[in-house]
């Protein structure tokens, strides 16, 4: 489903390797592994990421459904982390931080093999990153227009003053 996508925009489901990673993770609990594995399984089954023009939205949960969303422009930091096991499975975690008061990331994107693309996509829409340069000259052109108009205005007012001056002696 996720192969050969050129744009990040759209809906994403986590890669199947995420379940492998979660399985390994829960095996660390020894005999208690089902207590972690079951919620993780349900999480993987229901996890969705939606990237649109304004922001990113993620949702998961079966009984208690959760949905988190944020706009790109409010992103403060992007963290990309991966541990040894994740790297061998081709996975990485993208943590997105806004300026809210929590210590944890507001949205954590895990289980996408295209995590680097995701990071670049998010970064390029963050505040403080200039859009492609083609838009800047238009703005500059605009300021030039104002200057020309102002010069024309000055000429008009000068002419007005001359007219008034000519009129004064006769009137």
């Amino acid at each position, binding site marked *: 489903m996720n192969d050969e996508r050129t744009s990040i925009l759209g809906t994403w489901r986590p890669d199947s390797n995420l379940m492998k990673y979660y399985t390994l993770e829960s095996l660390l609990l020894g005999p208690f592994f089902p207590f972690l594995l079951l919620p993780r399984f349900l999480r993987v089954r229901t996890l969705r990421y939606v990237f649109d023009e304004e922001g990113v939205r993620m949702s998961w949960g079966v009984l208690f459904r959760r949905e988190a969303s944020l706009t790109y*422009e*409010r992103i*403060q*930091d*992007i*963290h*990309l*982390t*991966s*541990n*040894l096991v994740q*790297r*061998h499975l081709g996975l990485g975690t993208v*943590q997105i*931080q*806004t*300026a*809210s*008061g*929590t*210590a*944890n*990331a507001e949205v954590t994107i895990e289980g996408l093999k295209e995590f*680097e693309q995701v*990071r*670049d996509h998010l*970064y*390029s829409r*963050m*505040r*403080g*990153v*200039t*859009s492609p340069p083609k*838009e*800047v000259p*238009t*703005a500059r*052109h*605009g*300021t030039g*227009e*104002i200057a020309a*108009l*102002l010069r*024309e*205005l000055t000429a*008009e*007012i000068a*002419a*007005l003053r001359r*007219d*008034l001056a000519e*009129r004064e002696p006769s009137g």
Partner: protein
Amino acid sequence: MKQRVLKLLRVSERPQLPPGDRASIDCFRASRAHLRYSVLMWVPKQILALGALLASLAFFGGLDPPVEMAGLDRVFEVVERIEIKLLNIPVDLEWLLVTGESIAITAFLVQGVFTGALLKIRWELRWYMVGDEVLRIREGLWHLREQTMTIANIQNMIIRQGPVQRFFGISDLIVHTAGGGAGEDANDASGTAGKGNLHTGHIRGVTNASEIQERIQSRLRQLRGAGLGNDARDNPRQAEAFAMADAEAGAALLAEVRGLRVDLADR
């Protein structure tokens, strides 16, 4: 050797630059003095561990055949009983001690060689990228961590230098973005990829911390806005809209003045 370690750990030596304007980005490592500093910080830890090892060896060596400590005596007795009853193996206390001691010594040596050898690789994998728009910090060997923030979002910066760092002529530049949260390890100078505060970026062990700070500061001066959300004037599309509005207003004013002149001429 290094390439093999990196391949095994699936870490690329060089970091990825952020997209966009790459020409302005300085990509550099921590100073070489930082490596020397981290070696120096590593030595006392090892000495401490060695001390603990020797102390425990002396302690257990003193007990050798006659087990004097009542508690330990009890433990060994229990172990003995269990083993004899369940497994039918006669327990040799001395053998147990020797095995324990050799395991401890081997563990110490292995971790010493391992952490020592990885200090350099760790240093080589620590990268800083400072550009006109972006700051990115990448670090870590087992746990790779890459932090990206825009210069526009930086709130404040702190330069910190300890006495040993001063000796090496290096300091840390710490960069904060907006947002709270506990968990900042204020005294963590080890340079390891701790969890810490996700709003804090550590540029550790650089010789030109104030230069970097000045560069970021001069970029910040050019930017308006508090570093929160989006300032319309920082957005080129919005700026274009403003320019169009200016032009429209100017044109209206021009028409008005022109009309006034015509009126005056008619009078």
